[in-house]
């Protein structure tokens, strides 16, 4: 019912080329763009977006984009160098073809200063995983719809209708997601990386600690020992794990605590069954609810 595939192949009335840095932004753009825009993403789904290295073909795709949608907050900083190289004022910050989707998002965990300044502004570094909160999709799709309408004013009605349809479906599913996770409000969890604050805020989860607090630096034995003893005391319900990160440490902690290891997807298309934005949240909510339910039944 929704043309929310990563690449919307439907024949476009107007050929608006939207290029998003990640599959998540692409999925949201596809939900709004529908049959008006062709949407592509640059970083493959199951790849660490923060360590991504663009290829020559990516520069070409960026160059021909009508609209560029990025996550921002340093999550896709590789894009800055590419934009500078292309040198098209349309695609630079403030240009009509440039959209930083983080604008307007209620940001969480703003800490310290980034070494890199964004346009002379010293932003704090906020946690960039805001698309994992379904309510933030409302904000992001609004910005995308606005940008698309600006680029193709003639398609205004269709763009707005697409977004309305997406939001209506989001609202229905949002109720189901709430019902599924409501029994576990306040449950304590340990996550592999700090990817879930927005998800946790929306579904009222308490992520007490992380297996690997500094991405890329293996956890020390003292940290794991602390995690295990504190996790036992706090009665942690499950370990959250991102796909395609080494599982050994998460498995060890899960085994020692006797809790399930729950593999949740951080981006669209990174595991089977997460082909669009709603499916991504469907998958994460259902997987987590099922694991916590089984754990609770076992504990009784």
């Amino acid at each position: 019912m929704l043309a929310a595939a990563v690449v919307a192949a439907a024949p476009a009335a107007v050929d608006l080329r939207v290029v998003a840095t990640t599959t998540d932004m692409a999925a949201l753009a596809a939900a709004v763009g529908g049959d008006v825009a062709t949407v592509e993403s640059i970083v493959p789904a199951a790849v660490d977006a923060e360590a991504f290295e663009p290829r020559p073909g990516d520069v070409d795709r960026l160059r021909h984009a009508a609209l560029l949608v990025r996550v921002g907050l340093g999550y896709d900083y590789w894009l800055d160098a590419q934009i500078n190289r292309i040198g098209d004022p349309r695609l630079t910050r403030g240009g009509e073809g440039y959209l930083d989707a983080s604008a307007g998002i209620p940001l969480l965990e703003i800490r310290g200063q980034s070494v890199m300044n964004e346009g002379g502004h010293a932003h704090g570094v906020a946690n960039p995983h805001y698309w994992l909160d379904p309510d933030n999709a409302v904000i992001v799709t609004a910005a995308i719809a606005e940008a698309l309408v600006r680029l193709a004013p003639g398609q205004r009605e269709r763009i707005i209708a697409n977004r309305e349809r997406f939001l209506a479906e989001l609202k229905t599913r949002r109720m189901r997601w709430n019902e599924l996770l409501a029994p576990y409000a306040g449950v304590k969890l340990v996550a592999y990386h700090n990817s879930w604050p927005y998800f946790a805020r929306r579904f009222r989860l308490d992520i007490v600690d992380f297996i690997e607090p500094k991405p890329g630096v293996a956890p020390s034995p003292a940290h794991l020992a602390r995690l295990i003893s504190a996790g036992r005391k706090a009665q942690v319900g499950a370990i959250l794990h991102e796909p395609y990160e080494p599982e050994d440490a998460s498995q060890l902690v899960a085994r020692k605590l006797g809790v399930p290891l729950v593999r949740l997807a951080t981006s669209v298309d990174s595991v089977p069954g997460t082909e669009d934005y709603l499916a991504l949240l469907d998958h994460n909510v259902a997987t987590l609810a099922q694991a916590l339910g089984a754990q609770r039944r076992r504990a009784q």
Partner: protein
Amino acid sequence: MSDALSLLLLPFAASIAFVLIHAYFGVHVLRRNIVFADLALAQLSALGATVAFANGYAPASPAGFAYGLLFTAIGAALLTLSRTLARWVSQEAFVGILYVVATAATILVVDRSPQGAEHVKKILLGSILTVGPAELAKFAALYAVIGTLCWFARLPLLAVSSETRPAGRSMLAVSIWDFLFFLAFGVVVTSSVITAGVLLVFSFLIVPAVIGFIFSRSVRVVLAIAWGVGIAASAAGLAGSYILDLPTGAAMVTTFALFLVLAGIAKALVLVDTGRRRTNLRHAVRAVVALALALTFASSLWLIINPAADQPLAATFESATGFGPERFLSASERDIYESAGRDRVRFQNEVDRLDAKERAARYQGAPLSDEEIRRIASYQQSFNEMTRGERFVQDVLRAKARALERWFVGLPAAIISFVGLGLLLRAFWRHRSPADRDQRATSRSSLVIPCE
């Protein structure tokens, strides 16, 4: 504490297994003078596992293992070839090229099937801390089999284990033994690298064997020392990683290096006759003093030339002696400097407090609205901005203080260290007797590992 002990016990047992088998291969690898062969083999087997992954097999499945083994065998064959090629290309260069190409090929394969990325990451970093009992049993069984085979084949293996082609043997026989050696070596490395990571496996392989060769030329003694030191270094590394809260693999590698330095010191200062010991001690003291003087000289010059830049040594000196930049400021400037420091801490605390408040509201009490979250975020951003401002004030004042400090601290330090260096150099040239020079020549030649 029991958690810690249970966490460290399995990794330690695995380390013992790794040290026993790797140090043995390390002795061979050092004699053959191809220390990076393990990286090349490990990377080739990683390439095999990645290709398997791209074709839809898990690394732990029989097909995955077969792919890894196949690529390891190809690597073994290529390394066997390196002896023949040594006439034209240095063996080390050949091994290096093999490693780089295998790594690049792995990246290209991963690019086509992102699911393999996890495997590559694992091979690079390893995770000896999370080794399981089943894995450990598998290692023990595998290494026992390979160790036994190596024991039975020890004489021919030792005979071909050198950089040059051993005399009195046919090329074919040498090549077959070479291939078998590299194959066994490849299987060992393939298994260990997934658990320990390339850095740690390299340390298991090379460092204990090098320490052994420092003290002896006999293969038996070298092996005994390598095993003892390797196990001790593993225990120290694991304990250090726990006590100092450090990533285990990196801590162990550093500990192995530390043991190597200690072994070098022991060789030069403890296990020598009295006369030699005195000379060595003199050299060591002079080297340390010269290094300290050179560092002081460079740092004070840097302070004089550019007082506003980062001054790591001057900053260390200031914090150690309490003779900080405040002393070179006027009373009012000092007040500003100190209150800027206090405010920085205060603002940071505010950011942390807001963070804790937001975190708690995620799951208890009434949830914060988006507007409240935005307000918290903008407060935090303001506090961050203000912290930045205070840091700027401190930087400016510190630069001003250091512009003065350079004449009172930098200049005397530069003169003293310069004179000290001069005196040391003069003494060095005067004391360099002909006997010293002879000894240096012999010690250099003894670094070459002879073939038994």
